[in-house]
C-alpha cells in the first residue's frame, strides 16, 4: 500500500510542468479559430516579440479572465469584443492602453471608450449583412419587401426565402432599428418596447407565418440552408462566409436592406474586436508594443488577406474581395453595441418576448411590456448593505456551542472510550477527510458564503438574508408566476421523478438482461448500449434538438411517414408548449442517463452468489419468484446509493435543459439550477443571488434525504 502511494506521488510529481523562469514572454489570449487564428499566429510570428499565445474556448473566456487576472496570473493582453469592456472595467480586469489613435474608424474608437478613457485598441469590426444566393436572386434588393421580386424563379418546396436566426435578439435588432428602435437606449432604459418595437415583431411574425423565414432556426440550420443552396437570402455575419469556403453556392454580400413602410435601414449591431490589456500587461512595455503591432496597418492587411475580416482602421486598402467589401459597407451602416453592463440584461427578456410572439402564444404589446418588466426587475438595485453583527453573533454562538459540547463530551468517559475504539477506523479515513475537506468542502463553503452578498463583481456588499427573502417571496410578484421559485421547484420535482423513474426502469431492465449467464453477443450489446454515455453530451443534445425541429426534424419525418400510412398526425412545434418541450427534455435526458443505471445494475448483480440462485431453483421457485424474492433484495442495497445520487444529479442537471429546450416556452421548462445559472451568467453576473439559489437547492435536497433516511429507518425497524 505504501509503495503504491509512493509510486503514485512520483507519478503525480512527474506530471507537474516546469515553469519557464527567464525573460517572460508576452501572454496573449484569444478565442479565435480557423482562419482568424491562423492570421493572428502569422502576425505574432513575424512580430519579433516573444509571445505566448493561448486559444481559449469562447465559453470559458470570461470565467478564465475573472479567475486569473485578479491574482496576477493570466494574460498581459487579450482579444475580445468591445461590449464586454464595461464588465471587465468594473471587475478591474482591464487597464487603460495608450496607443496612438490615428487612422481608425471613429465608430470603432468610440466603441472602446468608456467615460472618456480609451480602454482598448480596436482590431476588427463585425456585424451581420445580407447574403444573396446568386443562383436564386437576380440582384441585391434594396428593400426587404423586394426579396421576392428579385427572385429568378418561384421557390420550390424545401427552399426558403430568407434564413436568419429569428429567435435571437441580436438578429432581430436590425428589424427594430428599421422601425427607429434600439434594444437599449444610451441612458440604460430598455428600448425593446413601444410601437416601433411592436411593428418590428409583427413583421418578423408575418415573415415566419408565410413560410418565407424558417421557424426555430439556429446558426447551424441557417448555415445548412444557405450552404446547400436552399435559401435565397440569409442574414449572417462573416462567420458564415468562413463555412462557405468549399461550397458550390455562388453568393454576394451586401448591407441589410431598408424596410419600405418606414424607409428605415435595417442597421445591425456592430461588434468591435479589440485588444485589451490586463493591469499587469498595461505596465509592460513589450505588451504595449505588441498591442500597437497587432493594431498596425500591416497586421490589418494580414488579417484581411488570411481571414477576410473588416479592419477597424480606415487607412488600409480594402482587398479586391467582394465579401470583405460587402461587410465593410455593412459595418458603416451598423450601430455599435452598447458597452454598458445593462446590455447583458437585455438579451434574455427580449428573446423570451420574440419567441412568444413568433410561436403565437402572445401578442407583441403584451410580450414586450412583460420583457420591460423583466428587464427592470433584473436591473433593480441590490438590497441595502446589512449589518454584519447578526452573522458574527451567530458564528460566535455556534463556535461557543461547539466548544461546550466538545468539553462536555471529553469529560464523558464512555465517549472517550468510543473515540479510542474509533481510532482504527480513522486510520482508513484520514486521507479522505483531508482531501475532501480541502478541495471539496472549502470551495463549497466559500461558494455558499457568497449567497449573503449582492451586487455585481467588483461592487458586492454584504446583505444578510436579503437574497433568500427575495427568492422565497418571488421578488415581490405573485408566488406562482412563471419563473417564481415555487413553480420552478414543481417543474424540477416532476423532472427529477420522471427522469429517475425512467432511468432506473430502463437501466435495471437492461442490466438484468445483460447479466444473463447465457447471452450471445453480450459484450457487443453492453458496449453499444453505453454509447449515449460515452459521446460528449454537448453534441448529442444538439442532435436531439435537431430531431425535434418542426420543419426539418426526424420526428417530423416520422409523422409524415405515419400520415402516409393513414395515421392522423400533424408535425408539432415541440418547443412552443410546455408539455411537449418538457417531454423533449426528458427524452433526451433519459437517453443520456440510462446507461449509467444499466452499468450500476450490472455491477450490483455481480455480487449475487450463484449458490443462492441454484438453491432457489432446487426448491422449485419460479423465475419471477426467484427474481423478486432473491435477486432484488440482494441487489437493492448496492443500488440505493446510486439511485439516490442519480436523483440528486438529475435535480441539478442543467445542461440538457439549456441545450435542448433552452427553457422554452418562456422559461417554463427551466429547473431550479438553470435559474441559478441564469442569474450568474445572463442576468448581470449576480453571483450572490445565484449562490442563494444554490444554498436553497442544497437545503431542499438535504432536508428531503434526511427525511427519507428517517422514514427508511423507521420502516426497517
Amino acid at each position, binding site marked *: 500500500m505504501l509503495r503504491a502511494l509512493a509510486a503514485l506521488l512520483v507519478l503525480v510529481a512527474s*506530471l*507537474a510542468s516546469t515553469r519557464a523562469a527567464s525573460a517572460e514572454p508576452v501572454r496573449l489570449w484569444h478565442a479565435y479559430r480557423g482562419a482568424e487564428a491562423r492570421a493572428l499566429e502569422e502576425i505574432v510570428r513575424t512580430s519579433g516579440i516573444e509571445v505566448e499565445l493561448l*486559444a481559449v474556448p469562447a465559453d470559458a473566456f470570461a470565467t478564465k479572465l475573472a479567475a486569473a487576472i485578479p491574482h496576477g496570473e493570466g494574460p498581459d493582453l487579450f482579444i475580445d469584443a468591445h461590449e464586454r469592456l464595461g464588465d471587465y472595467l468594473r471587475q478591474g480586469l482591464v487597464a487603460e492602453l495608450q496607443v496612438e489613435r490615428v487612422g481608425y474608424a471613429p465608430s470603432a474608437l468610440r466603441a472602446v471608450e468608456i467615460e472618456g478613457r480609451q480602454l482598448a485598441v480596436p482590431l476588427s469590426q463585425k456585424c451581420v449583412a445580407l447574403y444573396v444566393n446568386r443562383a436564386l436572386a437576380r440582384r441585391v434588393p434594396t428593400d426587404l419587401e423586394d426579396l421576392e421580386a428579385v427572385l429568378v424563379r418561384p421557390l420550390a418546396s424545401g427552399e426558403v426565402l430568407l434564413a436568419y436566426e429569428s429567435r435571437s435578439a441580436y438578429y432581430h435588432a436590425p428589424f427594430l432599428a428599421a422601425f427607429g428602435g434600439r434594444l437599449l437606449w444610451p441612458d440604460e432604459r430598455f428600448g425593446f418596447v413601444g410601437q416601433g418595437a411592436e411593428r418590428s415583431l409583427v413583421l418578423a411574425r408575418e415573415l415566419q407565418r408565410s413560410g418565407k423565414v424558417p421557424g426555430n432556426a439556429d446558426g447551424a440550420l441557417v448555415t445548412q440552408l444557405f450552404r446547400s443552396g436552399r435559401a435565397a437570402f440569409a442574414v449572417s455575419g462573416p462567420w458564415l462566409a468562413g463555412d462557405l469556403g468549399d461550397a458550390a453556392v455562388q453568393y454576394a454580400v451586401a448591407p441589410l436592406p431598408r424596410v419600405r413602410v418606414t424607409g428605415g435601414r435595417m442597421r445591425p449591431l456592430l461588434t468591435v474586436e479589440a485588444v485589451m490589456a490586463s493591469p499587469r500587461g498595461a505596465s509592460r512595455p513589450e505588451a504595449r508594443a505588441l498591442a500597437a503591432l497587432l493594431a498596425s496597418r500591416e497586421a490589418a492587411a494580414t488579417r484581411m488577406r488570411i481571414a477576410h475580416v473588416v479592419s477597424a482602421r480606415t487607412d488600409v486598402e480594402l482587398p479586391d474581395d467582394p465579401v470583405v467589401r460587402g461587410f465593410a459597407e455593412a459595418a458603416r451602416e451598423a450601430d455599435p453595441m452598447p458597452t454598458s453592463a445593462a446590455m447583458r440584461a437585455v438579451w434574455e427578456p427580449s428573446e423570451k418576448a420574440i419567441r412568444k410572439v413568433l410561436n403565437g402564444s402572445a401578442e407583441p404589446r403584451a410580450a414586450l411590456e412583460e420583457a420591460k418588466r423583466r428587464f427592470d426587475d433584473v436591473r433593480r438595485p441590490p438590497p441595502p448593505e446589512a449589518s454584519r453583527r447578526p452573522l458574527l453573533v451567530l458564528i460566535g454562538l455556534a463556535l461557543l456551542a461547539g466548544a461546550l459540547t466538545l468539553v462536555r463530551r471529553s469529560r464523558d468517559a464512555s465517549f472517550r472510550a468510543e473515540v479510542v475504539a474509533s481510532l482504527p*477506523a480513522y486510520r482508513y479515513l484520514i486521507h479522505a477527510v483531508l482531501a475532501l475537506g480541502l478541495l471539496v468542502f472549502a470551495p463549497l463553503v466559500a461558494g455558499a458564503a457568497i449567497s449573503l452578498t449582492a451586487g455585481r463583481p467588483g461592487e458586492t456588499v454584504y446583505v444578510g438574508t436579503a437574497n433568500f427573502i427575495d427568492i422565497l417571496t418571488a421578488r415581490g410578484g405573485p408566488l406562482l408566476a412563471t419563473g417564481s421559485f415555487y413553480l420552478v421547484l414543481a417543474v424540477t420535482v416532476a423532472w427529477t421523478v420522471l427522469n429517475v423513474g425512467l432511468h432506473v426502469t430502463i437501466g435495471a431492465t437492461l442490466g438484468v438482461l*445483460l447479466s444473463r449467464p447465457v447471452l450471445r453477443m453480450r*459484450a457487443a450489446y453492453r458496449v453499444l448500449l453505453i454509447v449515449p454515455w460515452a*459521446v460528449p453530451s*454537448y453534441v448529442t443534445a444538439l442532435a436531439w434538438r435537431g430531431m425535434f425541429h418542426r420543419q426539418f426534424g426526424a420526428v417530423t419525418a416520422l409523422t409524415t411517414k405515419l400520415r402516409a400510412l393513414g395515421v392522423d398526425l400533424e408535425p408539432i412545434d415541440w418547443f412552443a408548449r410546455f408539455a411537449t418541450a418538457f417531454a423533449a427534455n426528458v427524452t433526451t435526458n433519459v437517453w443520456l442517463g440510462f446507461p449509467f443505471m444499466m452499468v450500476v445494475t450490472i455491477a450490483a448483480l*455481480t455480487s449475487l452468489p450463484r449458490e443462492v440462485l441454484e438453491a432457489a431453483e432446487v426448491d422449485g421457485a419460479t423465475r419471477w419468484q426467484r427474481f423478486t424474492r432473491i435477486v432484488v433484495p440482494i441487489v437493492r442495497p448496492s443500488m440505493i446509493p446510486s439511485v439516490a445520487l442519480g436523483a440528486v444529479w438529475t435535480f441539478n442537471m442543467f445542461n440538457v435543459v439549456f441545450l435542448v429546450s433552452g427553457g422554452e416556452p418562456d422559461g417554463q421548462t427551466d429547473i431550479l439550477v438553470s435559474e*441559478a445559472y441564469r442569474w450568474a451568467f445572463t442576468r448581470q453576473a449576480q453571483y450572490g443571488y445565484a449562490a442563494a439559489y444554490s444554498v436553497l437547492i442544497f437545503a431542499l435536497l438535504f432536508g428531503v434525504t434526511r427525511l427519507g433516511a428517517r422514514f427508511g429507518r423507521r420502516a426497517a425497524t
Partner: protein
Amino acid sequence: MSDPAREPPSLAESLAVHAVLLAATAFALYPVLWVVSLAFSRQQTPEPRLLPLPEQPTLEHLVEVVGASRTSSDGREVWLFGRQIVNSLVVSSSAALVGVLIAVPAAYALARFEFVGKRSGTNALLATQMFPAVAGAIPLYVLLEVLGLLDSRTGLVLCYATTSVPFAIFQLRAAFEAIPLELEEAAMVDGATRFEAFLRVVLPAARPAIAVTSLFAFMSAYNEFILAATLLGKEELFTLPVVLQRYIGEHDANWPAFAAGALVVSTPVMAIFYWVQRHLVAGLTAGAVKG
C-alpha cells in the same frame, strides 16, 4: 458460461430478450447516427429524414480535428491533438486512480467499522453532491494558486480525484457490505491482521465494483470542460473537452468538426468499458464463499 445446473433458456425467451436488447440498442444509437452523419458529411441539406446517411461523405472534419498541430517557438511542429489525447487519458486515469485509492479505505471503514462521527460524516459526504457550485471554478482556482498547482496537470488531477471521491465511497461501501463478513473472519483466524485481510480478501472480492467505480471516476474527469479550461494556461496541457469546446465560437460553431472530435473522444471510453465489462459477470463471488 455453460452451467449444467441451469436449464438453457427456451428459444422464445431468447428471441424476446434479443428483441428488447435490439430495440434498446437502436434507441441508443439512433441519435448518434446524426452525429456520425454530421461528422462525415461535406454538406448537410436540411430536410426531414429518417435515416441520416452522410451526404458527400468526407474525412476532412476528422482530419481537421485529429491533425491539429502547431509550430512551437523553436520551429518544431508539435502534434497538438496527440499531446492532448495523451493529456486527457493520463489526467483522467490518474484522477480515477487517486480517487479510488482515497475512496477504497474510507468506504471500507464505513462498511465495517463503528466510529464516532460515522453518521454525520456520511451526511456531509452526501451533502457535497447537493450543492450546485455555480461559479465553482473560481474558488478552486484561488486554492490551487495557493498550493502552487495552477497550470499543471497535477492540480487538475487532484480536483477531479476529490470530486469523484464521494460517489466512489458510496458505491464501494455498498460493494464491501455485500461481501460476506465470514471471508475476512476466516482470513483473520488464519493469522492475518485486519488490514491484511482487507488487502488480500476483501479487495479481490470487490474487484468488479472497483473496476466500475474507476470507470465512473474516469468518465467524470474525461468529459469535464470548465475546470480544465479555467485552470490550465497552456495549449499543450489542454484536455480534449477543452479542445472540442474551441470549435464552439461566440456567434457560430463548427459543428461538423465538433461532431468528429466527439466521436474520436468517445472511442477510448468504449474500449475501456469493453475491458471493464468482461469482469462484470454475475456469480463471481460464488467460489470464494466455499473456500
